[in-house]
């Protein structure tokens, strides 16, 4: 019984979905005039569906139904989710031109996925691809970062 009542990650997610749907609904009912009609119907329906989903997940958990969700691997997931944020932070500070080689070098170094020569080759190759594709062909000036690093 204790096992059955223990809150699963699936239940937490269903609860978050209910809260988000509730926030959308609360936002919709504050809208005035014709622009509020459709969001009110849709968010109301989504909230109702989210509540049903939560009830079904909770009922399934209570009955001890096996879940088909992979168990949470917290450290791996946090690390995997952190990498894109690291890239964003690097881009914000150094701009794309410097951030991407730095990110690739950092990633390869931490993960030890490539040797030094191969890492340098991939980084140079990707930087060349980026320059040819975005600067020469698409003529898109890339963000230079708050430090203003550009070519």
């Amino acid at each position, binding site marked *: 019984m204790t096992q059955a009542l223990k809150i699963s990650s699936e239940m937490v*997610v269903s609860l978050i979905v209910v809260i988000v749907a509730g926030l959308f609904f609360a936002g919709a009912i504050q809208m005035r005039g014709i622009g509020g009609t459709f969001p009110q119907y849709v968010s109301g329906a989504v909230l109702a569906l989210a509540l049903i989903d939560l009830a079904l997940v909770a009922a399934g958990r209570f009955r001890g139904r096996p879940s088909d969700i992979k168990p949470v691997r917290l450290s791996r997931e946090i690390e995997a989710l952190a990498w*894109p944020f690291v890239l964003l932070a690097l881009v914000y500070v150094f701009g794309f031109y410097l951030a991407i080689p730095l990110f*690739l070098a950092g990633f390869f170094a931490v993960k030890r996925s490539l040797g030094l020569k191969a890492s340098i080759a991939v980084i140079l190759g990707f930087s060349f691809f980026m320059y040819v594709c975005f600067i020469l062909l698409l003529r898109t000036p890339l963000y230079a970062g708050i430090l203003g690093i550009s070519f």
Partner: protein
Amino acid sequence: MDILFDAVLNLASLSGMFYLLLGVLVGLLFGAMPGVGGSTALAILIPLTFGMQPADAILLLGGVMGANEFGGSLTSILINTPGTSTNAATCLDGHPMARQGKAGMAIGAAAAASTIGGWIGIAVLLVLLPFAKTIILSFGPPEFFLLAIAGLAAVALSTGQYFLKGLIAGGFGLLLAMVGFDDMGGGQRYTLGIDYLWDGISIMPMLIGVFAIAEMIKLAVDGGKLADDTDVVVTGVMDGIKAVFKNLRTLVQGSLIGTLIGLIPGVGGTVTAFVSYSAAKQTSKDPESFGKGNIVGVIAPEAAINAKDGGSLVPTLAFGIPGGAETAIFLGAMVIHGLQPGPMLLIEHEYVIFSLILSLSLSCLLASLIGIASARYLTHVTRLDITVLVPIVLAIAFVGTYAVQSSLGDVLLALAFGVVGYFMLKFNFPRVTMIIGLVLGSLAERSFHQSLMISRGDYGVFVATTISKVLIALLILAIGVFVYQRLKHARRLA
């Protein structure tokens, strides 16, 4: 006819052929990577098409769409690792053939069946489009509103046991489409006081986030290599091609199954391939040989997988209701090229439609030819370490997202959707319904308001015409059948 001729001329031009060939190569490469697939390829390629003419962009994307599934078939046959779940049925007999030293024969059969299957699907598309055009012209705002809702529900239904989660994701997609300045009522909706959100949520960052970034996060969590491969020998390709013509009934049956199932929005290639495989097994004189290297077991799913593309383009092009993830991304690409997906696309942009049809037709053939020639080497991409692939795709996704509108806000949004997409993947919320909700959101809301304006606020307008009644009846019937089946299944388990 002039429009078709113009599209042929564009395809025959040097740049047209270059983009198509590039699309085919990218499609084959990504299709061969297990867990990556065509959706990721399309999502990261779209920003690169930004500076192109719409027709060239469509040739490139059509090349990817036409080729990625054959890339997955090659790894299914050679190393028993399907590029996407769509190719899983090909493993059943394709890999046993490879283990018997008949890899080339299986690849030849897969190449011929997928090419001819693709052409049959496209032929059906060409036949059905004029009828769809006539139907569209008889639609008014209430019918369009119901069509958008029915399309969304159909896609959610196709997710099977995740129907409820699919509907919720679709609902969130509709709500996200409402973010920004409201043209109809004036004022802002769901902008949270953030200026960036005044223009609404762009489809591009959402697509890149939900597909490319989310997939990379998942791969980073899973770790390891995409798959282990072994050295393979590819001989006897011509025997495989001949076998397809000796099994014409299977080829036609598989192609028709693929096309018909493709017409139903959201029913993916996996279902199509397995239905075709089962039908071939059930109608075979030698069903025991299936699963042990029967070439018919390769022909049937391969013909269906590519034929499905033609079928799924009917609701996509005619009604703006994407048949699946790839067609949803494709519709997103149309948006950034200034083409509004929806019923009028077929009427106003025939050139685009013909360009897509031509690129799909040719990409099936090119993918087969290039795939046969490069099969041995293509399987090596599965050796690629995830820790090399992930940072590169993330970098391309970030630069690509920024390049579309030169906006760092887009990159942040893509990242946010990447995280959301990862959790959707993990907790079985179908991502495609959210995308379809976003794509159909403006059509649904506009049609909803127009209908109520026409009727002066009378909701009876949504059931006033025969078409509306038929759409509602179909929707209720589909949901009813689904609920009945689920209850029956639950009782059987109990």
